[in-house]
């Protein structure tokens, strides 16, 4: 008999999401992912000064505001006709600002959003060492009020007690590391979340030698953490939960807009030289050139008035909250009408097949060391591994970019807001491919449209009945215990659905899962 498992809310992500799975014979036969908050940014942006888009769109997400700021400024640069005029200082500082938030975001995701699905904090209850942080966690457990670390799923925690304790310690260290990543960003960005310095034309901040040095040493501490703690911990999870290389495979189509401009002279972002390359890969074979005009969005199962799939600038945002076929506020973006996964794994697969030597060498070594095949990366663990490698390569590169800054040289180009224009800003953020599109009329925003990473990954079925990437990853999954469906939440969180944050772990009492109903 089929059982429907609903997980609403899916927590430890950014924002409001639910997942539903119909389980029959221990296997997921149908799956739905739904976004449950609508704010209407595209409607709010209409009629405003185009420059305000950079500030307003950062507020789409407090975890990944930086990449929205980046996409918005690329978009405005292109609409203002200055896409190839940003001074090198501006380009490099934008890379450093975005890179710092990559590190913040990846560390936060692995430790504070994901780890509680694998690490048992209750192992600290009889901690007998002398680490003050773990002792305070032990005392907290002893007092007995375990919120917000209870209730939780019970069962599949596989680490030995001492390893659990060590991982809890790393979880606490990671809190500090992600905070330092924000602090580092702030040197050039003014404040975080929602940085103030990235603007059309470049940045507002000057690179000075004290800031460069302060940035460098914060970065060095984070690099040490990534190499000696984060990556080994991901390997530990991979070795202890190796079955997750076989769980959560997505559509197998990967899309990346590339990221980190290495040269600012080509105004075409789809072809600009970037550290991670632009393109698409199907079935782990050859790279195809990225053509943004192939991107459309379907609203068949989204709570918007019905329309045919259209390109972003042709999209109308007309909410229809009670639409019969709707089950999500997320739209369904498609590339050439097909379903594509985005994110660190997609970025790495695309750069791998684009011949990026650093990516290829790193990924080949990773696959060989873990004793897996390249195709095994299309999985829960593959996404975590790609994210950790992403953090390492970005952090290492930032150390090189930092020395390219020239104090005293220009940071920003000047511009006039055109009466009429169109623009596009595409760039990969921590969670994947982000696109902003704008049409300007009478010097104000006539149309602004965003297609964000979690729209690609977390969107619902389209008019052809094709499931979204997260839904596909859930389909066919064998669920051992429908009352504690670890598999489902581990799959969903491996995509890092645009999330937020925070702290500690633990709990005890066995919990009943969401609504467990027979259908």
């Amino acid at each position, binding site marked *: 008999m089929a059982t429907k498992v609903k997980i609403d*809310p899916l927590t430890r992500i*950014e924002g409001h999401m639910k997942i539903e799975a119909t389980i029959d014979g221990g296997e997921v036969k149908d799956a739905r992912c739904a976004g449950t908050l609508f704010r209407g940014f595209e409607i709010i942006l209409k009629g405003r000064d185009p420059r305000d888009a950079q500030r307003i769109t950062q507020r789409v997400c407090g975890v990944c505001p930086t990449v929205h700021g980046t996409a918005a400024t690329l978009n405005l640069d292109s609409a203002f006709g200055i896409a190839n005029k940003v001074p090198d200082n501006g380009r490099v500082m934008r890379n450093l600002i975005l890179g710092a938030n990559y590190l913040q975001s990846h560390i936060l995701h692995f430790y504070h959003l994901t780890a509680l699905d694998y690490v048992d904090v209750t192992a600290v209850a009889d901690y007998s060492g002398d680490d003050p942080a773990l002792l305070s966690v032990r005392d907290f457990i002893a007092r007995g009020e375990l919120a917000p670390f209870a209730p939780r799923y019970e069962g599949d925690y596989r680490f030995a007690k001492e390893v659990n304790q060590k991982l809890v310690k790393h979880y606490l260290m990671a809190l500090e590391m992600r905070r330092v990543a924000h602090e580092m960003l702030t040197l050039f960005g*003014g404040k975080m979340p929602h940085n103030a310095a990235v603007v059309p034309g470049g940045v507002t901040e000057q690179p000075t030698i004290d800031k460069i040095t302060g940035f460098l040493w914060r970065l060095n501490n984070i690099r040490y953490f990534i190499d000696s703690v984060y990556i080994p911990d991901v390997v530990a999870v991979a070795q202890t939960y190796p079955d997750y290389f076989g769980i959560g495979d997505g559509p197998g189509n990967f899309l990346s807009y590339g990221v980190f401009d290495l040269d600012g002279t080509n105004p075409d972002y789809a072809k600009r030289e970037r550290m991670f390359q632009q393109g698409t890969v199907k079935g782990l074979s050859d790279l195809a050139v990225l053509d943004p005009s192939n991107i459309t969005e379907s609203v068949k199962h989204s709570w918007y008035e019905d329309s045919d799939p259209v390109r972003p600038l042709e999209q109308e945002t007309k909410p229809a909250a009670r639409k019969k076929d709707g089950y999500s506020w997320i739209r369904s973006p498609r590339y050439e009408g097909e379903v594509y996964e985005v994110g660190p794994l997609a970025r790495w697969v695309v750069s791998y097949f684009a011949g990026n030597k650093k990516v290829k060498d790193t990924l080949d070594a990773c696959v060989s060391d873990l004793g897996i095949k390249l195709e095994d990366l299309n999985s829960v663990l593959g996404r975590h591994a790609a994210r950790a490698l992403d953090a390492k390569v970005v952090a290492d590169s930032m150390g090189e970019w930092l020395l390219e800054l020239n104090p005293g040289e220009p940071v920003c180009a000047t511009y006039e807001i055109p009466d009429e224009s169109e623009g596009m800003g595409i760039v990969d953020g921590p969670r994947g491919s982000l696109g902003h599109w704008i049409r300007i009329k009478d010097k104000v925003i006539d149309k602004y449209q965003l297609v964000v990473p979690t729209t690609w990954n977390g969107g619902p079925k389209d008019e052809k009945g094709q499931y979204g990437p997260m839904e596909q990853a859930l389909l066919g999954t064998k669920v051992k215990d429908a009352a504690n469906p670890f598999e489902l939440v581990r799959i969903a969180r491996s995509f890092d659905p645009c*999330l937020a944050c925070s702290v500690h772990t633990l709990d005890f009492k066995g919990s009943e899962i969401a609504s467990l109903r027979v259908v």
Partner: protein
Amino acid sequence: MSSKVYEIPAVYIAGAACSGCSVSLINTINPNVQNLLVDPVIPGKHVSLRFHATIMAGQGEPVMKVLRDTAKEIPGEYVLIIDGSIPTGEDGIYCTLGEIDGKEVTMMEMAADLAKKALAVLAVGTCSSFGGIPSGEPNPTGAKSVMEFLKEQKIDKPVINIPGCPPHPDWIVGTIADILINGLPTADKLDEVLRPKAFYGELIHDNCPRRGFFDAGQFARNTGEPGCLYELGCKGPYSYADCPNRQWNNGTNWCIGAGAQCIGCVEPDFHDQLAPMFQKIGEDDLERFKIKTR
């Protein structure tokens, strides 16, 4: 463990929000996040955070029941923290928090149920305090601030606003610590729009390190130039917060420090009345905003 620790229950729910307030909160330094969640943040008092969707271990209906049971079982004993504005259009359907007994619960319903029984409500962030970005024209979801919403629902409850997009972690933590040490703030501790004067008492412009340029009439004309940013649209002359003294992210920098205009993110008029953000606002407006916010 030597002396008795009292548990102070709190629940944190988010409506039309971006999680930026939560991310800012975890940038707190003294106390750090661990201290905040695990340790008695004030001697003898531990804040027991029963619900926070991005922090908590659990998911699904069991965590929704935590919310329901908090209102039912310990009325008058818990602090309600609201992040994000409350979408009220179409009966609140634009934001649902989760399901209980197979029924979706809207932010609107949950905010009302929890507020009725709460000791007090902390509105964290500008969306929650004043409506913020989601309530911007034409306010497609009928997003309301906590103050407006409670008034409409005829729920009489002490509200403290901690605006900012996002608020500085010290503002949030400091307000909570004040409640734990001194109890709910008396009226004289808050300004006309219910912000703690301790953090929002002075005009940014009055403490700005670039104030000397303003007084000398030296204005930046282009981004990245030295000088006062007033001509480039800086809203420091209309905004009340201690950013210039406190600075952000461990005292590293702040908006104006990085050469960027203040956008007035702590003000009730953010972001409609204070837009365009990069455009100078005239003398008339200065008077208007002063009257309105003071």
